[in-house]
């Protein structure tokens, strides 16, 4: 599998009214079994769904399988989408559920040593430090539980509103705010710990 830095706009950037109308038309066609409409939806969301799965699962190898499973479940249950909310919140809800359910995620563990995280911080060159900070963020995200990580990704990367995250995660908005706050606090704590460890090195 090829892994690269892909420039994909956040999902919030898709919310153009014209595109929404076209999307509604394609969804209606897909609900009636149109293969072309399914292809249109796949082309529109494929990259985003794989990226979301990759960030939640933190295993690039499994992300594509999970994304495929999510698409299959979504298309099989497309008639249950009534068009009340955004299609992507409905789709993301399935993606997040598949990722969190994915049996291989059971192997997830937070026992990553702090030395492994602080290792990237030891570089001195500016360019290297930029790469290091990316690696650091990724390494710290590895230590956050998958549900909290999913919320962070939905908020910080996809730019979803609290209400939309609530719909995706199927929790009230108040709990979204609280959990995001907890996730950021956890991230900050881990970051401080990593910085302290790197100073000792």
């Amino acid at each position, binding site marked *: *599998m*090829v*892994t*690269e*830095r*892909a420039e*994909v706009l956040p999902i919030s950037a898709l919310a153009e009214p014209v595109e929404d109308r076209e999307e509604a038309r394609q969804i209606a066609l897909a609900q009636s079994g149109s*293969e072309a409409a*399914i*292809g249109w939806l*796949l*082309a529109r969301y*494929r*990259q985003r769904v*794989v*990226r979301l799965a*990759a*960030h939640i699962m933190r295993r*690039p*190898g499994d*992300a*594509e399988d999970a*994304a*495929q499973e999510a*698409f*299959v*479940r979504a*298309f*099989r*249950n497309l008639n249950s989408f009534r068009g009340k909310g955004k299609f992507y919140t409905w789709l993301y809800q399935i993606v997040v559920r598949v990722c969190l359910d994915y049996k291989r995620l059971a192997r997830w563990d937070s026992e990553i040593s702090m030395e492994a995280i602080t290792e990237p911080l030891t570089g001195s060159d500016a360019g290297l430090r*930029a790469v290091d*900070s*990316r690696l*650091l*963020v*990724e390494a710290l*995200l590895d230590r956050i539980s998958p549900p909290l990580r999913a919320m*962070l*990704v939905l908020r*910080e*990367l996809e730019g979803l509103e609290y209400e939309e995250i609530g719909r995706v995660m199927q929790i009230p908005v108040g709990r979204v705010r609280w959990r995001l*706050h907890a996730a*950021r*606090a956890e*991230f*900050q704590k881990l*970051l401080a710990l990593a910085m302290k460890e790197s100073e000792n090195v």
Partner: protein
Amino acid sequence: MSKMQEDEISALLQDGLRQAAVPTPAADFDDRVRERLRRPEPWWQAFVMALRPIAAPAACSLAVTLALLIVMGLPKPAGSSSPGAQGMSNVALEPTDHAPSIDQELDRLDRDIPSLNGFRRKQHTGVREEDRQEPPILHRGTSYRRPDRDNRV
């Protein structure tokens, strides 16, 4: 965590996530999805999916019901119906040799009180011969049933 710190963390996370390497879907991604869609869904998978929304509430409800049944169905240990009764049973554990003498003393005190004299007279006139027998000494923490209740139908 202050608002500023939260914003800084958000900015760091956004940068890190945007720069993170993500897998590019394989060229045959769409074909594999279509192929799976053409295959009929296994009946058990559809069953599990249909059952899923009610599975968790049903499991919780079952657990609560079982817990209630266990708690309510257990026979109560003798003399432990309430904290008060428990305290009384603790009193009953004490030696009771002196209990009759306390009762007699209390009766004597009652008889000595002039305002209770009327009750004493009623007791003498209104009590039937068969009821005149001494009631069993009722210790604290022991259950006592009136003898006449046993004869009721």
